């Protein structure tokens, strides 16, 4: 305990300790068993961090494995298994590992485990979700028993934050098929894909005193109404993905409450800029002025959202640019742009469907206002099944959905860089690309911030990605479950509630 406190103070994090301090009297208590229900589970459930695709996977992986770093509530990377992570040039990184950390099935954590865990992402046969990021690792090698050296293909100041993602959690070396043997707060007791995961407390967890719970059973209840019913009936103690419409029901129960996380999750309307008519700058400007953001926030999300400004960095992010003027609904300007674009009266389909939260309703709002300025938008509803492979980015106008990423660099690199595989709008902005690469290597924090500010301004002004709001994530929980402190990286405390919560019954 002492050791951890000192270190966490030195590292300036204390992230996990905050709730106890903030809520005063409540002190963590050992023991107890809870059942948690997320919204998705299938035969694709996996014990392999590299393949984690859904919230259920992330929660499972953070229970069983630990990462080199972790993202704090301040959105900054803090040390975890890596005691120190340093670089002089932001190309070659030196990691020194915490000592005396043991795997569940025995054996001390060494550099060989880390090297193995990182390099396996480069194997295309694995199908790692982080393959594109791992492609930046030109070399990963052991430097003694507790040292690891990572060499990147170019400078990237965000490596510590990228390594905090669940996909980069550390496995035992040589584990071809991960079986839950990690250094995480819980040990695997039962795993049945699509049915449930049971994990029990790891008494030798490297953060002394944690975790508090004895046992966690993780299931999924895909149907939202059933999920809420299970919470209210006392069959589960924690759920995620509560719909804004259901919050009143949860709050009306004296034994339950909701936990809201303002997040960087957004559903965006994508206007393809590499083809006409959606690539017409006046058309895009008109669309941006047709979005009634307060209405979308109020009507679609019952206020559980943050107004967006057509760029992917949310207001609570350290690099957010507060100086960009907020675009608002302005029918006169929209009409002026439509007339200039020459698209008056042309019928244009928007592809929307339930795969993207709020897409159909947002499209309806746009259609309504569009009709008032002479823009004939038609909504083509498509099923969720197969949406990402058949419709997303494939039409002049479609909807996308982007989950929170740990850094501004990641969201820009994945979705806005000219050569990115998911450059949704297909835009090409040399200045933006240049800034993005420069910011990765920039040592001076102020200059780096200024670069991110300019990138946000460029996306806001010129890109066809229209982001009306950032969607808040809502969890529901039993009031006896304490220590839940919303984390901007995602619901369920950034999927890392397991080691931080306790049962006060």
């Amino acid at each position: 305990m002492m050791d951890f406190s000192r270190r966490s103070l030195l590292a300036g994090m204390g992230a996990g300790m905050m709730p106890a301090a903030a809520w005063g009297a409540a002190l963590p208590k050992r023991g107890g068993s809870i059942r948690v229900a997320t919204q998705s589970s299938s035969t694709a459930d996996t014990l392999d961090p590299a393949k984690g695709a859904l919230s259920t996977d992330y929660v499972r992986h953070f229970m069983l494995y630990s990462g080199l770093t972790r993202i704090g509530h301040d959105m900054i990377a803090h040390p975890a298994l890596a005691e120190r992570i340093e670089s002089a040039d932001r190309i070659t990184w030196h990691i020194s590992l915490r000592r005396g950390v043991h795997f569940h099935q025995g054996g001390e954590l060494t550099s060989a485990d880390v090297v193995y865990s990182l390099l396996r992402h480069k194997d295309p046969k694995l199908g790692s979700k982080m393959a594109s990021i791992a492609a930046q690792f030109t070399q990963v090698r052991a430097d003694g028993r507790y040292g690891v050296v990572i060499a990147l293909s170019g400078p990237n100041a965000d490596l510590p934050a990228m390594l905090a993602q669940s996909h980069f959690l550390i496995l035992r070396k040589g584990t071809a098929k991960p079986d839950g043997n990690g250094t995480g707060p819980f040990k695997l007791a039962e795993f049945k894909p699509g049915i449930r995961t049971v994990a029990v407390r790891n008494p030798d967890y490297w953060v002394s005193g944690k975790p508090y719970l004895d046992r966690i059973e993780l299931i999924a209840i895909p149907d939202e109404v059933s999920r809420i019913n299970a919470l209210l009936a006392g069959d589960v103690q924690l759920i995620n993905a509560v719909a804004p419409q259901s919050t009143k029901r949860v709050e009306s129960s004296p034994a339950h409450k909701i936990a809201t996380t303002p997040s960087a999750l957004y559903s965006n309307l994508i206007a393809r800029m590499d083809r006409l008519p959606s690539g017409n700058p006046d058309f895009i400007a008109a669309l941006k002025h047709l979005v009634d953001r307060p209405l979308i926030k109020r009507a679609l999300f019952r206020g559980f959202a943050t107004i967006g400004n057509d760029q992917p960095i949310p207001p609570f992010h350290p690099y957010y640019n507060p100086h960009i003027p907020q675009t608002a609904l302005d029918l006169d300007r929209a009409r002026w742009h439509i007339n200039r674009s020459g698209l008056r009266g042309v019928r244009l389909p928007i592809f929307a469907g339930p795969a993207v939260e709020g897409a159909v309703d947002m499209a309806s709002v746009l259609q309504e206002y569009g009709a008032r300025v002479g823009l004939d938008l038609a909504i083509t509803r498509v099923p969720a099944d197969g949406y990402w492979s058949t419709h997303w980015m494939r039409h002049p106008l479609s909807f996308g959905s982007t989950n929170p990423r740990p850094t501004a660099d990641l969201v820009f690199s994945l979705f806005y860089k000219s050569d990115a595989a998911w450059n949704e709008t297909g835009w090409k902005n040399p200045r933006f690309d240049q800034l993005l690469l420069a910011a990765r290597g920039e040592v001076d924090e102020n200059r780096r911030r200024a670069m991110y500010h300019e990138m946000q301004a460029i996306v806001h002004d010129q890109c066809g990605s229209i982001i009306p709001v950032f969607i808040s994530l809502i969890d529901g929980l039993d009031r006896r479950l304490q220590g839940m402190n919303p984390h901007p990286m995602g619901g369920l405390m950034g999927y890392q509630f397991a080691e931080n919560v306790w049962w006060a019954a």
Partner: protein
Amino acid sequence: MVGGMSGSHRQQTLWPLLARRIASALVTLLMVSMLIFALAGLLPGDAAQEALGQSATPEQVAALRHEMGLDQPAPLRYAQWLAGMLRADAGQSLVAGMPVADIIAERLPNTLMLAGMTAALAVPLALAMGITAAIRRGTWLDRAINLASLSMVAMPEFLVATLGVLLFCVKLMWLPSLAMVSAEATWGETLRSCALPILSLTVVVVAQMARMTRAAIADQLDRPYVEMARLKGASLARVVLGHVLPNCLGPIVNAMALSLSYLMGGAIIVETIFNFPGLASLMVNAVTSRDMPLLQACAMIFCSAYLLLMLAADMVALIANPRLRAQ
């Protein structure tokens, strides 16, 4: 459903008929498997794309496709699957990376248990309702049973199940809202957690059976032989159970087989609402993840169950009614 009876006009025993029915069932299964394979191939995307989801890059998809064997031509993949099935090997699940047999073994007992318990409740209930209504034809009791069974048919199961959860789980807190079946649970716990799913499914299937039973019995009650039996002095119970019921067992059993076959694959809504780990949700899972071997295995199970129930119904009808067997 009754196609196998056309040849029964000749004098014959049950066995050749049974053999022919089994052979035709196998052909049906083969055709269904081809149809499912072809139709699933028409769905957008494949298992590799679905597994990688939104984050798929072309190189990753190609690598994963190769890993899953999806880069081979479809007829070859079908032939490989068929060859595996002939060796009683359902193959590897593309998505879960484990044998399909293991995944099925996890879920099939649950589905069979749910179907079995529902049948154990629904069949006697339907018989009782049908017989009572037929005997008391035209009375208020008949009308009440009619009204009840018609409203049961009309009410969608998601409504019944959701109302049940709201009342018994959230308000009264008598029953759990989730049907969690696990190895360590006792029979009592399992029964308690499955009570609502069983009741919801019963509501769905009982009405059809009750109405068929009533119609079949009512039809027989007007026959001269019933009047004869009554005049002989046989009690009403004896007439109905000993004379009428065997004569109309065929249509009743047929209606029951149809209703019960629904319990295998049609329980999807109940499985979803109660989070019951059964086969129907597994099959939906297999479709959305484009997991062909798993999808085929589920389809084969549902199809076999249907064929078996129909076969059993026809056999029962033949045994109960010698006139169908002999000229």
